[in-house]
């Protein structure tokens, strides 16, 4: 059939199963927008292109499908950059489509011309500049294929304006075969057998589950492995929800702000089975002293991740689900009562999640998050921002729903949560989606409240408002002699902001108000924002300081459990 370039784009998107795109129009994508109403695709108009990329990312993370965002050339395209880099670091499959100035103008510094393929070269899995209409159908097909296959990631397609306008023959190409791109999916049987032998011989085995488990839909296999061989599971931040966090074998998140028992388990294990995790420095802390007693099995679909940060004993390149399926029959049923008992003892020594029963002064963010957990039964889709709030969310909410936490882990992008939650809610219209965010990060993309209203999304927003760039302040308190340089933050009245958009809101200053207000927000049919005025100088514990090894955590201070506004250096804590 004969189509314009713009029509080819939408035609291909429909065939790729895309039903929603996030974007903002402009001169170089006018043809695309002109053709759009003829196709069964819902366009979500965001208020800043960064939000378009984050929303596409949130959509992808909530649904497992490819998220799509759209921007015009020049400033539209550059505004996508942070969102694309966020998706790259967290292996999120998104396709970003940008308009480019017409072919004769390329390279002439034309109005709103920017070399977006050059700019995004290191932050995309692959990218394209399309200047020939005949290539367009193939590029679109390849882009989706590359974005979703292997280790997923963002792909950008920059389409010259004249290509969008031109007309040509369109045929949806078959699935591409790319000579330079053939991801290994099935694990090498010899290495799988070696892994099984190590697992069968281990006395204190530990699984480290990363986002790869979720990306490859390997949660059932992960659970089978853990249960069959009685292996406790620590996750990375992005591996959270790979195993329900209330599962008896779940130790929650490890790393810089992981629970002490999770980190101690890493330091004491004799066999670490890393699945779809990349040994990021926020997990490992001092690399040379990470898991010092362990042999390491590393399962990852990306060969370059194996041996990048840490030397491993058994590398297995492959898709986590397929590798685990081949591994499971070789693993003998086992129990490790002594190992689990040791972990239980460490656990009992932590004053972690029983926060609801702790005496406290003022409004503690931990209590707020824990109340969110209680109110939602661990079943909400939580979309967290970056900073202290992100860590409290990860620590005090037990995510039982698979894909129940969406957060920017690798890039740590403040301002991610609200737009990503917009994408998540559109991907999962029936789910209860909560944004948890700091007052700083929220102000980086709060213009998207308009999108929430325009799209009639029933998002619930919890601002953990401490009046600080809290994580920065915490580092300054602990490591920079309490000099709060540039971290005090004057915020607006968030309830008035919400009111300006016609969004319901409440301010919470007392612990007694927390539960009822959360309940009210959940019952409220539309979106609602809650401004939690938390203690300004609350800290995140435990914490592994810079250069320290995982077992050298600064533990939670004991009674009164939570540090107060009068601050002071944190006490070394119990046990």
């Amino acid at each position, binding site marked *: 059939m004969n189509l314009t370039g713009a029509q080819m784009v939408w035609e291909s998107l429909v065939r790729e199963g895309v039903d929603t795109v996030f974007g903002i129009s402009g001169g170089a994508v006018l043809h695309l927008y002109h053709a759009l109403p003829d196709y069964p695709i819902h366009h979500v108009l965001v208020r800043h292109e960064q939000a378009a990329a984050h929303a596409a990312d949130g959509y992808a993370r909530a649904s497992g499908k490819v998220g799509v965002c759209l921007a015009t050339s020049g400033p539209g395209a550059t505004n996508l950059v942070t969102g694309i880099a966020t998706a790259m670091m967290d292996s999120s499959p998104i396709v970003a489509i940008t308009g480019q100035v017409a072919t004769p103008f390329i390279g002439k510094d034309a109005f709103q011309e920017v070399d977006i393929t050059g700019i995004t*070269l*290191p932050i995309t*899995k692959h990218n394209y*500049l399309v200047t020939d209409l005949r290539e367009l159908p193939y590029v679109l097909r390849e882009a989706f294929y590359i974005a979703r296959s292997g280790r997923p990631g963002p792909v950008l397609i920059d389409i010259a304006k004249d290509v969008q306008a031109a007309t040509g023959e369109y045929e949806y190409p078959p699935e591409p075969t790319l000579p*330079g791109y053939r991801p290994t999916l099935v694990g090498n049987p010899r290495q799988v057998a070696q892994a099984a032998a190590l697992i069968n011989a281990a006395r204190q085995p530990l699984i480290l589950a990363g986002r790869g488990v979720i990306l490859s839909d390997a949660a059932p296999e992960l659970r089978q492995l853990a249960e069959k061989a009685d292996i406790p599971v620590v996750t990375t931040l992005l591996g959270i929800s790979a195993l329900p966090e209330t599962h008896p074998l779940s130790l929650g998140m490890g790393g810089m702000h992981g629970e002490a028992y999770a980190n101690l388990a890493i330091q004491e294990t004799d066999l670490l089975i890393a699945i779809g995790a990349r040994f990021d420095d926020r997990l490992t802390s001092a690399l040379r002293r990470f898991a010092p007693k362990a042999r390491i099995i590393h399962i990852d679909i990306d*060969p370059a991740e194996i*041996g990048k940060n840490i*030397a491993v004993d058994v590398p297995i390149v492959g898709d986590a689900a397929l590798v685990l399926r081949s591994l499971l029959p070789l693993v003998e049923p086992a129990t490790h009562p002594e190992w689990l008992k040791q972990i239980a003892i460490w656990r009992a020594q932590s004053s972690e999640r029983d926060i609801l029963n702790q005496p406290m002064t003022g409004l503690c963010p931990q209590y707020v998050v824990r109340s969110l957990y209680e109110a939602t039964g661990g079943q909400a889709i939580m979309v967290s921002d970056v900073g202290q709030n992100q860590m409290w969310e990860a620590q005090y909410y037990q995510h039982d729903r698979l894909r129940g936490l969406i957060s920017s882990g690798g890039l740590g992008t403040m301002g991610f949560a609200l737009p990503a939650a917009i994408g998540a809610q559109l991907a999962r219209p029936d789910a209860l989606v909560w944004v948890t965010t700091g007052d700083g990060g929220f102000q980086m993309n709060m213009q998207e409240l308009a999108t929430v209203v325009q799209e009639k999304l029933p998002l619930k927003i919890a601002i953990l408002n401490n009046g600080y760039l809290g994580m920065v302040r915490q580092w300054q308190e602990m490591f920079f002699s309490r000099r709060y340089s540039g971290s005090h933050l004057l915020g607006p009245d968030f309830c008035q902001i919400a009111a300006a958009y016609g969004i319901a809101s409440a301010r919470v200053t007392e612990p007694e108000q927390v539960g009822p207000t959360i309940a009210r927000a959940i019952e409220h049919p539309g979106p609602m924002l809650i401004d939690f005025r938390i203690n300004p100088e609350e800290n995140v514990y435990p914490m592994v300081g810079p250069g320290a090894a995982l077992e050298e955590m600064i533990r939670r201070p004991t009674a009164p459990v939570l540090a107060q506004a009068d601050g002071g250096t944190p006490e070394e804590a119990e046990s």
Partner: protein
Amino acid sequence: MKHTLIVLMEDRPGVLNRVSSLFRRRNFNIESLTVGHSETPGISRMTVVVDGDDTVVEQVSKQLYKLIHVTKVTDVTSEAAVLRELALIKVHATANTRGEIMQLCDIFRAKAVDVGADSLTIEITGQEDKIDSLIALLRPFGIKEMVRTGRVAMVRGWSGNGSRGARS
């Protein structure tokens, strides 16, 4: 230690940019890089000399494979391989010194490819150390201009491109 990698890639716009951007971003220490056509139309062949230990070179290779247009990476360091570089050296030469320079060229099997009023342009092919030696000997005469191509490599004997180095 210096490793020699042969990289085959689809000849697409920007592919060289992708490769060099990767080296820069990953902080790889690249000694030289040459690129040109291979025996297969549409496939370019690059020779890269990387300085680093085995783990670094393994990362270089794996990261290169992640580029969609890179089809094959082979480390030929431990193979019997022909390693060659070409240099053009324009050296100051007077009627008095010309003969001496030509003699040096003979020893190194280098060729004078251009003669000017006060200069000689010499072409030499060989391993880097041979070229280094000639340059050292020519330097006292005054080198006015020089260009070196960087190393190219080919494994000796029969070894088609598809024969070895399957990706991990």
